[in-house]
């Protein structure tokens, strides 16, 4: 991000605060607008609560299944002791499919490592990095074309530690699912059948406990080309 955009963002932060103050000043003090909500407000809550419970139950069941499988495999302690990297070879996530979304839930200890730097070797012509969000545990970059802001793709990755999850919203669209191998790493590709929503590719670098993803309207071959070009900064391409 250049200096201009940094100044722009600082101004935006100041202005946003200004707008927030004006917005809140224009509203009554919460103490003075007490409104007893009617019993009708509770309508639908029972259904929601039941659904919430079902989701928790499904999640718990899956988590238990994974725990049992892991426990069984971990009992092979000799093998695990001999080959320290073996643990990384286990699939430590669960894919839960709901009516309107697919959720990946991750298991495993929180990594004390630094988040690796992955770089894209192939960026389709005309795209440039528009925005980058980075934290200690995640990285996300939007690549866009200058004259066509809607034609963007997002490359992101984050630690797949215990409790982390990523959700793919299906938005009532039909998706075609394919198991994919990216440079030897397993992954899932979701192609939106109608083309109205973006396509999603997720793949898993278990050696570094990182999940990577590309979200793009581009077709399958372009997405795979981008994904296959991703490499670790300190490793040879």
């Amino acid at each position, binding site marked *: 991000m250049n200096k201009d955009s940094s100044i722009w*963002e600082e*101004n*935006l*932060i*100041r*202005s*946003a*605060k*200004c*707008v*927030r*103050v*004006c*917005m*809140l*000043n*224009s*509203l*009554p003090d*919460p103490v003075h*607008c*007490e*409104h007893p*909500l*009617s019993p*009708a*407000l*509770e*309508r*639908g*809550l*029972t259904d*929601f*609560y039941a659904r*919430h419970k079902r989701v928790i139950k499904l999640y718990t069941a899956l988590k238990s299944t994974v725990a049992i499988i892991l426990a069984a495999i971990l009992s092979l302690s000799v093998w695990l002791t001999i080959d320290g990297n073996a643990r990384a070879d286990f699939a430590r996530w669960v894919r839960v499919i709901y009516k309107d979304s697919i959720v990946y839930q991750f298991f495993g200890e929180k990594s004390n490592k630094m988040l690796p730097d992955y770089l894209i070797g192939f960026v389709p012509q005309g795209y440039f990095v*528009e*925005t980058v*969000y980075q*934290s200690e545990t*995640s990285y*996300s970059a*939007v690549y*866009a074309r200058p004259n066509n*802001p*809607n034609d*963007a*793709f*997002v490359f*992101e990755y984050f630690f797949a530690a215990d409790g982390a999850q990523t*959700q*793919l*919203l299906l938005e009532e669209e039909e998706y075609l699912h394919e198991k994919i191998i990216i440079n030897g790493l397993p992954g899932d590709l979701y192609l939106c059948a109608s083309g109205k929503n*973006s396509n999603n590719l997720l793949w898993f670098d278990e050696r570094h406990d990182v999940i990577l993803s590309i*979200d793009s309207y581009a077709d399958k071959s372009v997405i795979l080309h981008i994904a296959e070009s991703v490499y670790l900064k300190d490793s040879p391409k």
Partner: protein
Amino acid sequence: MLIYLQMMDSTEDKDKFEAIYLAYRGLMFHVANQILHNQQDAEDAVHQAFLSVIKNLDKISDVQCPKTRSFLVIIVERKAIDLLRKSHFKDSIPLDDDIAGIEVPLPGDHGLADALASLPARYREILLLRFDNGYSAKELAEILNMSRDSVQKLIWRAKEALTKAMERGEC
């Protein structure tokens, strides 16, 4: 509130939610009613907003701070607009981006802040959540129930709209 509370596991969460509920339900109803002009619909919007609050309780650190108040106003404003859009009047309502939410007075700087305050609700909301509340794209995706890609595109479009408003000197 009992059912809301049953949906949470820890005592700390329950206490936090109870404090939010008691402090802001009236304000949230006021905001929703400003947009919907119908008590029952406004309550539905408040209900939807509280369900969203439960799912995103971890993103609220201080119940009493102005940013929390702003967050709740924005959430209920969004739910009210969504409800309005889905209502049986939807065919006569313009595109979502043009639906005005609550009326935000111009700060009076004749610049960026005025332009931001005058943006359509959807753009103003995402920019306030991003740049005032400081939520990441991932957090915003969870709060707004959108994909991260959609959030980042919305931020992009909001910035574009802001730039155009500045260039046109609308404020």
